[in-house]
């Protein structure tokens, strides 16, 4: 049942425009795999190539050992969930869910049993005989999911399934999706542009930009050790700062513009005097008034109290702005205009080449 998806050297062209130049990927059996990226990055294009709705201009797509390049979408045994649900409006919920089963020419009692099972699983059994237009967006999406799952596909494909829902439903539904996927253990490819959603549901994520995979990894790896500046800025928020590498013997440091020097023990491939781009996430930048060993300096521009955390926007001495997130304290919020000193958490920050293309952290 669980199937591995292998993509070798995929190419997608629209006329002369190359949407995906050369992409290879392996998705493990039973894995919840997400394609994440800004709009136009090629994630939906790739998903539709897997589904069979887009032509494939080059490369090979496998489900397990089976080459599927020329297989009709109706024969790929995929379940697909669409952004706009694509529920058949003229069919009741039950008939929608049973649609794929009927095409498989299953015996009637089996169709009924399976339909009932998946409607119960998605908690839509009470609407079985209603027409979809009477259902809310969340319920419709449940129907779409039940319909896709009922045929017990080898692969489940989801194209931004939650983007038409309101914020609260989105969180609720993504939990439901994750639970169901865990229970059924079906290989799932999920497309979204929402990084928080991707982190919440995925086993692994492929971050895409301009048709190229920037990094594949677990949510934790992507957030903590991004492969390049694009991933660092696309996943979560970060402050980018210029710095210079100083190598003296076995000791490697980075030196910020104001001379603040941080000792690093995880840099590789660096030379003395090399210009680098440092990514410091807001929580990795700490206000420390007592700092002895040097620090970044700046002035608080404004602050936002958000309950758990307090955000500060600081203008650094070199004129750039940085964002800081601190756990809210019981004493007063730092006044606007206050001069502050800041240090970075050396073990957490990331260092990239000056052009941001490559990480220099082990």
């Amino acid at each position, binding site marked *: 049942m669980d199937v591995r998806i292998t993509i070798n050297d995929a190419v997608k062209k629209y006329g002369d425009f190359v949407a995906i130049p050369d992409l290879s990927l392996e998705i493990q059996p039973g894995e919840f795999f997400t394609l994440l990226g800004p709009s136009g990055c090629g994630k939906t294009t790739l998903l539709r190539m897997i589904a069979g709705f887009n032509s494939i201009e080059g490369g090979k797509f496998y489900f397990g050992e089976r080459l599927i390049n020329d297989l009709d*979408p109706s024969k790929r045994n995929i379940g697909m969930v669409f952004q706009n649900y694509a529920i058949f409006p003229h069919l009741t919920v039950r008939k929608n869910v049973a649609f*794929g089963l009927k*095409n498989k020419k299953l015996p009637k009692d089996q169709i009924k049993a399976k339909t009932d099972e998946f409607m119960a699983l998605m908690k839509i059994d009470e609407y079985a005989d209603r027409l979809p237009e009477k259902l809310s967006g969340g319920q419709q999406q449940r129907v779409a999911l039940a319909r896709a799952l009922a045929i017990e596909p080898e692969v489940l494909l989801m194209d931004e399934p939650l983007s038409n829902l309101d914020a609260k439903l989105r969180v609720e539904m993504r939990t439901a999706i994750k639970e169901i996927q865990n229970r059924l253990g079906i290989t799932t490819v999920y497309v979204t542009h929402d990084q928080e959603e991707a982190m919440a549901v995925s086993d692994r994520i492929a971050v895409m930009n301009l048709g190229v995979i920037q990094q594949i990894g677990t949510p934790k790896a992507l957030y903590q050790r991004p492969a390049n500046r694009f991933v660092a800025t696309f996943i979560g928020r970060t402050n980018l700062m210029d710095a210079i590498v100083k190598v003296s013997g076995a000791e490697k440091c980075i030196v910020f513009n104001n001379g603040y020097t941080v000792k690093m023990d995880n840099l590789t491939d660096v030379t003395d005097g090399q210009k680098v781009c440092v990514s410091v996430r807001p929580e990795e930048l700490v206000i420390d008034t007592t700092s002895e060993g040097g620090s970044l300096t700046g002035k608080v521009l404004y602050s936002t109290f958000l309950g758990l955390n307090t955000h500060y926007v600081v203008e650094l001495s070199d004129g750039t702005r940085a964002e800081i997130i601190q756990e809210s304290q019981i004493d007063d919020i730092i006044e606007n205009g206050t001069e502050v000193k800041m240090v970075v958490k050396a073990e957490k920050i990331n260092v990239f080449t000056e052009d941001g293309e490559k990480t220099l952290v082990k």
Partner: protein
Amino acid sequence: MKKKAKFDFWVIASLAVLVLYLLFMVYPLLKIVSQSVLDEKTGKLTMKHFVKFFSQPYYFRTLTNSFKVALFTCLISLVLGIPLAYFYNMYEIKGRKLLQMLIILSSMSAPFIGAYAWVQLLGRAGVITKLIKSLTGVTIPPIYGFNGILLVLSLKLFPLVFMYVSGAMKNVDKSLLEASANMGVSGVKRFFTVVIPLCMPSILAATLMVFMRSIADFGTPLMIGEGYTTFPVIIYKEYVGEMGTNHNFAAAIAVIAILITLMFFLVQRYLTKKNSFSMSAMNHVERKKAKPVTNFFIHLYGYGLVAVALLPQLYLVYLSFRKTNSSGEVFQQGFSLQSYQHVFKKMGNTIWNTVTICGLALILIIVLAILISYLTVRRRNVLNATIDTLSMVPYVIPGAVVGISMILAFNNKYMPLVGTAAIMVIAMCVRRIPYTIRSSVAILSQIPLSIDEAAESLGAGKFKTLVKVTIPMMFNGIFAGAIMSWVTLITELSSSMLLYSRKTQTLNIAVYKAVANATDGRACALATVVSVFTVISLILFNKVSKDGEIMM
């Protein structure tokens, strides 16, 4: 995924449709063109028919006449129809649904019947003319000629403008009106600077429809025009005229007619392209109650206009129940059902003809329109793009021209269709199909592609998807459209007039002939039968159509 087998079901379907177009539309039209440059006696190549048309004012004037009629009809229809649509969508009107029904109903009969009825009312011996004369001694100016044609056609065609523009106004978002009010533009000024421009695409579409219908109509000028001839009349006369016919000359006039309509069509397309945008209201405009005085005028305007437009039809119904002499020529005192008795006894086959011929045409039109719209929307390729273009051609071909082209093309021993019911069915299909295709395309375009893809991902092949998912989803819209097509088919005159034989006479032709034979009672009874058909169809339409939206 493209497959190796290129010649799948859809390619065959495309080719079949293409063959149908080539055989029943392109070939007949080419036949017209070729006939127009041949000498009627020697069969040699000649331009003399065109020279004759443009050098003799008698012929040439028909062209300017037609153009004038069409232009002014457009103008008046717009002036009547747009305010009506505005009131209808912006204000509370009592009996809204009924008013809409009546507006549509008033457009749903052949214009020549309207013309005939107006003659009965306002002609030299018309009841109103006589009444005014006896009351005031004033003789009202005659309605024959240009003014009469204009009156009849405008009252017949303003409902088209109403329907198109009303459809557009429904899609104007409330917030657009609120935004303009917010910036200080409201009332009449808003109507002209915001509402009208927003409805421009529909206004242009309506203008095209009105223009084509009025320039191609030949029953009206024949009935009420007297000396004022338009070119469809000339075509008809040159073809079946009493004073010797000249098919080649008729063909030449037909070619000129096509060029004129084509020109207008292209201008309209150009303007539409420039004004093309689409709207979809998230918040519909709430109709408000007008202030008492305004309210009164809105109702007076709406119902008054409809009353005037429907008056002739109602008068014919009244006449149909009047007693006549035995041959049906003269009305006498009192009422009787004798006209109907005659109609049902002697002319029962015309009713049957109407049902079978129009019914068959309707079925063909629906099946082909669904197929063609599916091909052009969902299976876009060079072949289907060609079909798409071809499917628009009948827009610019006046009915009389279709009729002639059919005769010229199928009066041979290989396809001897002249005089058969088949040729009438074909002509009706050719004439009506672009409208049904267009509404099917509109419906199909609203169905997201992902619905098809969902069906496919669930294991349904392309054909199964079409039958199980796409067509059922289109059904409501198509069925509603079909009823409208049905009405236009049973009221069709201009092409059938040239194509019918004794055996294939339909109701509308029978009305025309009864009028021509001065058997007024029977004409009225037949016209009433057509109206009854129409009313039943309209009621049916209102039952199936979700929001009473009409797509022509």
